[in-house]
């Protein structure tokens, strides 16, 4: 197991921009003013996400992992530092971005198919040209026969599948997922983990996946970024050297258990998890 700590100290020189970094995050800080003084949601975040890499961001609630994701999406502006996407400084949401949130935010007045197609409508792409692709995505995610249903007729897992199809419609290079399976039951979550792993295997999109599930993070990722709170910062980044394609059974292997053990131990030592 290779681990490389990435905690940023004050005297640490900025990284040179790595050649292969799709997303380069340099000393990013984000603070909010409040009546009780500033809240430091993020402090000194340094992270490179390589093109085609699956990175999970793991941490307790309040560690700023969702804020970090929103900064990468260009939805929030960091108060300090800089984020480059493909070498260009980020200013607003980048091109070819797909997002999935914990709540599926499907529009009740649209059918499942029309919900998927809205991505194209926003991007001013004629929906007729992507209709076929939308249908294929829905079929691939097991929603065949539900294209013309409305979201309220679907279960939580199916709704989140539709939300993933919506994010994938315009074939994004960068997929940002904010606890997408956090509200689902364990079995549905397993299903969707497997489907996401498969689709990533086929398309090799660059993925940043925010979660508080340790097993989920290890199962899906090439690297797991662990964060702590007050202020939100990266405490460790570990490489997950497990063979791909991965099956759910990999979670019973000793290598997998080793990663889980390491992460649990780290969070326990920080008082974020209790042991017994």
């Amino acid at each position, binding site marked *: 197991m290779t681990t490389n700590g990435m905690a940023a100290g004050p005297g640490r020189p900025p990284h040179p921009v790595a050649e292969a970094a799709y997303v380069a995050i340099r000393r990013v800080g984000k603070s909010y003013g409040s009546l009780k003084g500033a809240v430091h949601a993020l402090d000194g975040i340094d992270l490179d996400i390589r093109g085609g890499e699956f990175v999970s961001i793991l941490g307790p609630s309040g560690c700023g992992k969702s804020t970090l994701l929103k900064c990468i*999406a260009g939805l929030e502006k960091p108060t300090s530092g800089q984020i480059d996407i493909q070498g260009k400084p980020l200013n607003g*949401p980048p091109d070819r*971005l797909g997002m999935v949130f914990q709540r599926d935010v499907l529009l009740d007045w649209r059918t499942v198919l029309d919900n998927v197609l809205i991505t194209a409508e926003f991007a001013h792409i004629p929906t007729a040209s992507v209709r076929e692709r939308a249908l294929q995505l829905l079929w691939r995610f097991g929603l065949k026969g539900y294209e013309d249903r*409305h979201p*309220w007729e679907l279960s939580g897992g199916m709704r989140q599948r539709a939300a993933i199809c919506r994010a994938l419609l315009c074939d994004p290079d960068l997929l940002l997922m904010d606890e997408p399976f956090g509200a689902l039951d364990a079995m549905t979550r397993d299903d969707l983990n497997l489907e996401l792993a498969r689709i990533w295997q086929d398309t090799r999109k660059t993925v940043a996946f925010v979660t508080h599930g340790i097993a989920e993070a290890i199962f899906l990722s090439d690297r797991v970024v662990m964060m702590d709170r007050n202020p939100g910062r990266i405490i460790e980044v570990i490489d997950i050297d497990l063979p791909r394609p991965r099956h759910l059974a990999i979670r019973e292997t000793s290598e997998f258990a080793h990663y889980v053990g390491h992460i649990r131990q780290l969070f326990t030592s920080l008082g974020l998890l209790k042991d017994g």
Partner: protein
Amino acid sequence: MMRRLQSLYESGMVLIVLIGTLLLWEVAVYLLRPPPIILPAPSLIWREFLITPGYFLQQSFSTLYTTVVGFVLAVALGLALAVGIVHSKFLERTVYTLLVALNSVPKVALAPLFVLWMGTGIEPKIAIALMLALFSVVIDAVLGLRSVDPDMINLARASRASSFAILRKIRLPNALPSIFAGLKVAISFALVGTIVGEFVAGSEGLGFAILTAQGQFDTPRVFVCLILLGLLGTVLFYIVEFMERLALPWHVSQRTGHAAAP
């Protein structure tokens, strides 16, 4: 099918209660014999209507016309204001605050002022109807336009949607249930405004007819007008509700028999 039967049953119940009330009224008047100037019997009111049905229908139509014009103008102006208020901090601080302040003035008291400004034609009546209806349109539309899941907006922004596209494809449809709630209140207020206008300076309409009948101590005539007014209000309300059904087949309140998929 079950729903049809259910609604038929419910309408039947309403009809029975209504007829029962009229019968009770008729019998009470027959037994207690109050002077017709205090309380005429339903049969007398009906005969009064039959004397000059054309007159009553004409007055009803006049009131209906003023109400609908006032209402439509209030909806157009109200929605435009609401969109402006939601998109501009400046409008929110100025127009919205002003509207709330204005709403706490009993607006009916402003009616004579409108007559002074606009004369005794149909214009001041439309203006009063508009003014009374406007507030509930604006308040509910602002509420609806604001109650959007922030992640819905984030999602649209991540797809680089323009703010007009966000308004058209997300905010407005999302606000429709709330907007219609406001419209249902507004249509009744528009009718109240029209009647007030006709009271203050009218030469036609049900409000004018009521005042005229009052001047002649013709209570049965007043009752005819009141009943027509009630009918008018009810029909207008259900027309708005019908439009809501057409516009919102997806809304929770309209769903029937859709079980969630396993």
